[in-house]
Each structure stands twice: as structure tokens, then as C-alpha cells.
């Protein structure tokens, strides 16, 4: 079975490709939204690092307990 599978998939094409398309969209959505989230954080960091020294930002992470 090394041939390219028949895209109609014996009449099940819509259901099979539909499932895989939805899954692909979900995975791409997750990865892209994470990239955007990371970008938003670094942008904010750059803004706040103008007023607060970077060492303070880095140091503060250890002191938060609750």
C-alpha cells in the first residue's frame, strides 16, 4: 500500500480529513497563542525594565512565597 491514498477515502473523506483538519487547527492555535503570549511578556518586560533594574526583576522571583 505505498500508493497515495485515494482522497475520497471510500466515501469517508469528509469525515477523515475533517477530523485531521480540526486537530491540526487546534495544535496550530495552541502553538501560535503560546508564541503571542511569550511575545507579550517580553514586550512588557522591556517596558518595565526602563524603570526597574533587571537585577531587581530577576531577584524578585525568589522572594515570592504566597
Amino acid at each position: 500500500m505505498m500508493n497515495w491514498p485515494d482522497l475520497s477515502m471510500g466515501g469517508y473523506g469528509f469525515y477523515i480529513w475533517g477530523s485531521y483538519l480540526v486537530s491540526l487547527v487546534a495544535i496550530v492555535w495552541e502553538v501560535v497563542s503560546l508564541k503571542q503570549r511569550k511575545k507579550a511578556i517580553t514586550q512588557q518586560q522591556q517596558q518595565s525594565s526602563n524603570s526597574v533594574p533587571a537585577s531587581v526583576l530577576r531577584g524578585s522571583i525568589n522572594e515570592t512565597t504566597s
Partner: protein
Amino acid sequence: MAGGNPNKLAIRNRKLAINMNLYKYASPATFYPLAGKMIPWFAIPAALLFATGLFVGFFIAPPDFQQGEAYRIIFIHVPAAWMGMLLYVLMAIYAGVGWAFNARLSSMMASSLAVTGAMFTAISLITGAFWGKPTWGTWWVWDARMTSTLILMFLYIGFISLQAAIDDPRRADRAGAVLALVGVINIPIIYFSVQWWNTLHQGATIRILQKPTIRGSMLAALLIMLAACWLYSVAVVLIRLRCIILEREQNTSRFAEVGV
């Protein structure tokens, strides 16, 4: 003797150093760079395994004798359903540990797992509908397995929105932990639903301690896709965990600025 025995002091220092090493990575600040180094080791194999799994599933595995080509939805549906359940259990464990031992990183891990778990549960529900329509003649039935999986989806959504609704991160962690731990009861219900009730949903394809019900290449494709989903989950959960660490750090530094 003032200063104590220097030998004893050295031993105690060494013990302290070992302890520090063990707990070192429980701190978000030290875990952050480690997680960064780990991500490519999961993301790249995940991509390769997704490609391999789909190739085996579509080019090598033969059509099913009963369902023809329609069964090929199994290669995404079953791994997604498993991940939805497994990630929920992991989320509940991390949330519970974070709550019981006041371990912030553990709670952050739970919040990170929730989104990926919800995504896989959504995939399993939607691909299940796509599989149900041609084989059962309906997109949805209130069957035991499907209903319990829908409840799993609501538990994830509940966990995520509950945490989003609470401003104080540690209070959000605790509230989420309660919900996550109570919801664990749903996991065995999903898992055994096809045995406990007469369901429309077919029984397990791969069972622990018993021979699987499908043949070699189909099983291979399914297991490769499952491994791919696992590796993918680890990668995205670590990426999100890093985001959460940074976001909480930013918040606390902003509080420090105004002197709260």
C-alpha cells in the same frame, strides 16, 4: 570548644548542599532555564513522530475489514482521548502537591497542563463526532463514554475559568486544586464506562495485560501517534509553564515597586 567540631560542620554543610540540590529545581527561578533547555528535546521528536505516525497510518496500515477507511480517524481520536484523561490526572496530582506542600511551581504546572488537556479533550470529542456520523449515523449520542468525556471537558473549562476569575495566584491555585481533585473521580468513570454500561461506543482497542484487538501496522501507527502526542504535550506544557513563571514574576515585581 568554640565554633564546634569543624568535621561535623563540614558534614552538615555537605548535607545541606545535597538538600539544596534536590530542592533546587522546585524553585521557579532555577527551573525556568532548565525547562528552556528541555523543550527542543521534546518538540523535535514530537514533530518527527507525528509525521511517521501519519505515514504509517495512511500509507501502510490496511483498511479495516468492518469500517473500511473510516477507522483511520482512530490515529488521532484515541491518542487525543488518552491525553485528555492522562493530563487531567497529572494536573490533579500537580495541583494537589502544590496545595499540600505550598509548592508554587507545582501549581503553575497544573495551570499549564489544563490548557493542553482541554485541547486534547476537545479534539477527542470533535473527531469522535466525525467518526460517529458515518459509522453510527449520528454526530452525538448521550452515551456513557461520550457524556463522561464531555464532563471532563467541562471540568477543564471550570478549572481554567475558576483560576482566571481569582486575582491572587496562590488563592487561584488552591481553588483550582480543590476542583481538580474532586473531578478525578470522573477519570475511572470514563475509562470503565464501556465495560460498566451498555454503550454505543466501541470497547477498548488496546488493553493492559491483554492482546490488542487490532493488527501490527494499525497498532504501530496508533502507538507512534500516542508517543507524538505525549512529547508534544511535554513541549507545549513546558513552554506555557515558562510563560506563567514570567507572568507571575512580573506581577510580583510590580507589587514590589509600589511597596505592597
